[in-house]
């Protein structure tokens, strides 16, 4: 079992998803929900044994599996994880459980398809984080689009079709250019193995062109300014579960891609284009934060806040030092929990009031005190309050930026102000004040089911904030190795 643990973690949810799909129509919805929960929990447990069996002292790939797949093109079924991939896998398996619980009562039509889509997507996302063959990576990466396309399109809001097609086409354009880059690398190395690419010598022109192709794929996913416009649309229209997975995991794949491909394969292009990447990141941090400030729609606000936070992540990566990269990863993990939690909070309100407009609310604390305290914690974490997970990453990134250029750090640090401004202002308008209208007056506080997932997330956010050591410890050796790879010129 040890030898195939990664395959197990990937295929268990996919098989579970197919089983759920086989339960058929909504008359058997309760069975579908139970199977989905069982498979998501089992997958989470499997992923925990990945954690317990993981050797933190080394940067080599672990739990590797390698079997020939398409011999004519040297494509292998090649899996393996290092300290950078593992935290994302744990994030994925954990959040899928939460999403299944969160969709328990809210989703009433096509339940089996909903649950199946999330389970299949879970398997594919874990596949993305563990693939060591470029084509296998690409298959998982693209395969994920279809379930997400359906999730937004079937269970989404009124403008869902526009949003989901925009989401799909944006991502597809970027990804296909990445595919061309993979084939080019294959032509140079006669291999699709990602570790082989780390050793492949490439001249600066090749590196820059490949960098741009990868950038197209990852920048769309992250998303970076100016290709971020799909995100607010997709987030606003997606059902709560879809928003959670989008914000918490899918965006992270872009960041993960930069770490797995751009930095180690194209070190010289990364250095040459670092100024450009930093500029885009700073624009995201400052400009998008200002955009978030004026949003009327809660989901849109959180979506823009995600873009700003991810700007922080890419800023950290292109500092090329350990603090920056570790901070970026920590920020991604923490943002996964926090943005997921905030979307779930909006979902809790939306299920009761069917409005996401900030102006429809006011004084929610009077009728939903328990909910208000949970949301307070997540809002604070989003603003980067010390003691929550949001602080760890931001602090490390700013530290890393300081080493490179004081002005980067100063500009990046404005996020602490803007982030607090838009999050807390939204919180104030929604939760505090006098009860705004009769609908708010009639609100009932969170149910036991809602408390379960909010409490799980709250605990994670706090633990990671107070004691981030386990997360940072896992990735340390791998990040050190990555920094060394990025520092070594291929020219």
């Amino acid at each position: 079992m040890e030898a195939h643990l990664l395959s197990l973690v990937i295929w268990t949810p996919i098989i579970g998803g197919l089983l759920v799909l086989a339960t058929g129509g909504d008359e058997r919805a309760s069975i579908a929900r139970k199977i989905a929960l069982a498979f998501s929990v089992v997958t989470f447990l499997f992923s925990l044994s990945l954690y317990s069996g993981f050797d933190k002292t080394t940067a080599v790939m672990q739990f590797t599996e390698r079997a020939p797949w398409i011999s004519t093109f040297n494509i292998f079924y090649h899996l393996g994880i290092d300290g950078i991939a593992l935290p994302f896998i744990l994030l994925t398996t954990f959040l899928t459980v939460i999403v299944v619980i969160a969709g328990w009562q809210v989703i009433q039509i096509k339940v089996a398809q909903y649950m199946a889509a999330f389970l299949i997507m879970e398997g594919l996302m874990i596949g993305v984080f563990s693939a060591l063959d470029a084509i296998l990576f690409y298959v998982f990466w693209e395969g994920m689009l279809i379930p997400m396309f359906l999730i937004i399109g079937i269970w989404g809001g009124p403008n869902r079709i526009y949003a989901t097609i925009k989401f799909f086409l944006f991502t597809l354009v970027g990804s296909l250019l990445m595919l061309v880059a993979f084939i080019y690398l294959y032509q140079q190395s006669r291999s699709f193995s990602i570790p082989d690419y780390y050793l492949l010598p490439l001249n600066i022109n090749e590196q820059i062109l490949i960098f741009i192709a990868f950038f197209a794929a990852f920048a769309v996913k992250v998303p970076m300014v100016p290709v971020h416009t799909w995100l607010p649309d997709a987030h606003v229209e997606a059902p709560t579960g879809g928003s959670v997975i989008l914000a918490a995991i899918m965006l992270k794949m872009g960041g993960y891609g930069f770490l797995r491909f751009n930095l180690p394969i194209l070190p010289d292009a990364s250095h040459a284009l670092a100024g450009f990447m930093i500029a885009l990141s700073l624009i995201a941090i400052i400009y998008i934060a200002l955009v978030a400030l004026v949003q009327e729609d809660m989901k849109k606000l959180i979506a823009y806040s995600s873009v700003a936070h991810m700007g922080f992540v890419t800023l950290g990566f292109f500092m090329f030092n350990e603090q920056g990269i570790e901070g970026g990863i920590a920020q991604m993990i923490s943002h996964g929990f926090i943005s997921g939690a905030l979307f779930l909070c909006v979902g809790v309100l939306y299920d009761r009031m069917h409005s996401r407009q900030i102006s429809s609310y006011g004084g929610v604390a009077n009728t939903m005190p328990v909910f208000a305290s949970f949301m307070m914690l997540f809002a604070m974490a989003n603003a980067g309050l010390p003691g929550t997970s949001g602080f760890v990453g931001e602090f490390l990134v700013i530290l890393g930026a300081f080493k490179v250029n004081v002005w980067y750090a100063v500009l990046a640090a404005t996020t602490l102000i803007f982030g607090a401004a838009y999050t807390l202002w939204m919180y104030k308008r929604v939760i505090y004040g006098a009860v705004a209208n009769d609908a708010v007056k009639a609100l009932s506080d969170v149910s036991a089911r809602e408390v379960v997932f909010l409490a799980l997330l709250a605990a994670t956010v706090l633990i990671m904030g107070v004691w981030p050591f386990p997360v940072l410890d896992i990735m340390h050796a791998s990040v050190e190795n990555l920094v060394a790879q990025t520092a070594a010129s291929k020219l």
Partner: protein
Amino acid sequence: MNGILNVTPAIPEIFVFTMACVILVVDLYLSKEQRAISYGLTLLTLGVGMMLSIMSFSAEPVFTFNNMFVDDALSDVVKIAICLITLLVFIYSREYIEARGLYKGEYFVLGLFAVVGMMVMASANHFLVLYLGLELLSLSLYSLVAFQRDSELATEAAMKYFVLGALASGMMLYGMSILYGLTGSLDIPTVRKAVGGMSPDDVVLIFGLVFVLVGLAFKLGVVPFHMWVPDVYHGAPTSSTLFISTAPKIAGFAIVIRLLIGGLEDLHGAWRDMVIILAVLSIATGNLVAIAQTNLKRMLAYSAISHMGFMLLGILAGTPTGYSAALFYSLVYAFMSLGGFGMIILLSREGFEADELEDLKGLNQRNSWYALLMLLLMVSMAGIPPAVGFFAKLAVIQAIIDVNLVWLAVIAVLFAVVGAFYYLRVIKLMYFDAPGEHVPAIQAAPDLKVVMGVNAWAMLLVLPWIGPIQQLCRTAVASVMSGFVS
């Protein structure tokens, strides 16, 4: 080995042809109720034809009939695929043709003659044999399109198909006659040898090449010789469209190999640029115009045009890897197209053709299983992984990047995104829209349901065996190449 009367290599053709004649006669003595016998015999013929082709599989080419006929791995792979696909075509269409009064012996006999034509094309080692096969196929197809006599659309389609098809055949013959004048032979290896000794800039040679290429382009339906494709696909009874859009594409690939690679490979420098233009125009026009279609059959017709453009990318690479990628592409495409038109047949019922895009509205609510099957097919056609259609595109794009045509790869890939849009629209209609009012339940015969399910799931289930299949394609191409060395 080159004996005049060695008939062994041609046994599959001889068998299918004999059986077609037998069925023609037997059917005369059958009443309407007993027609199932003809149907059964047809399926049996195709099944046995496939078995015979498998048994005669040899990587070494075997020549016979004065070198006019060759049995190599390519012809075997193509014949196996053609028999299998035609078998599935008949299973798909049984209920459909029954409901429309097309369930006649001639229908099966014409289908089988078309199969013989395609098999001869695949094995041709001589211009005349090739032309013979091509015309046998074409004439059978014209009649199959016109089979629904009282349909104006079908008659019009058949007329267009016939006039343009005859013109194309004429072009190709003219090209062949020029080549004959230059080389003094119609035998493909001899032509190859003679062309090899001539200057590749010879104007008359290029003149002949252009005519041959135009003929091929007509038959494949690539831009700018594609005008017949949407009309014929749309006008023909769906069962005939199903046939035209699948097996003949593979046979078309086979004659491209025989003519361009077999006979005129030394002119690669000359035809490469022409094929690049054909491919780029097809991919662009096919994908762009498909967006504007409201009829599913027409949309799939334009999609076929763009797929043929992708297939040509593999050919124009001019390497064995490219040719085998193109073979793999045409095999995969044939099965995707089979499923796509099969779904139209499945959703149609007596007196109603489900060939408008609107008819797919809300399919997920009416029957989520069929919606899922169509989703798999559309994803595969769009070339989105993990479906097998992606691996077909990957192979051809890899082949052209290998010969440093990265710009062409980028164009192809960007138009694939445009293409993804209209396949997505089908998914959107099925999953996101509500069904129209008063749509009756979908009824389909059990055999049709099974074939449909297997066909669609094959888009995913074949994944672990992509390597061996591509290996087979490479063997097939290598065997053609080895035939020229000896």
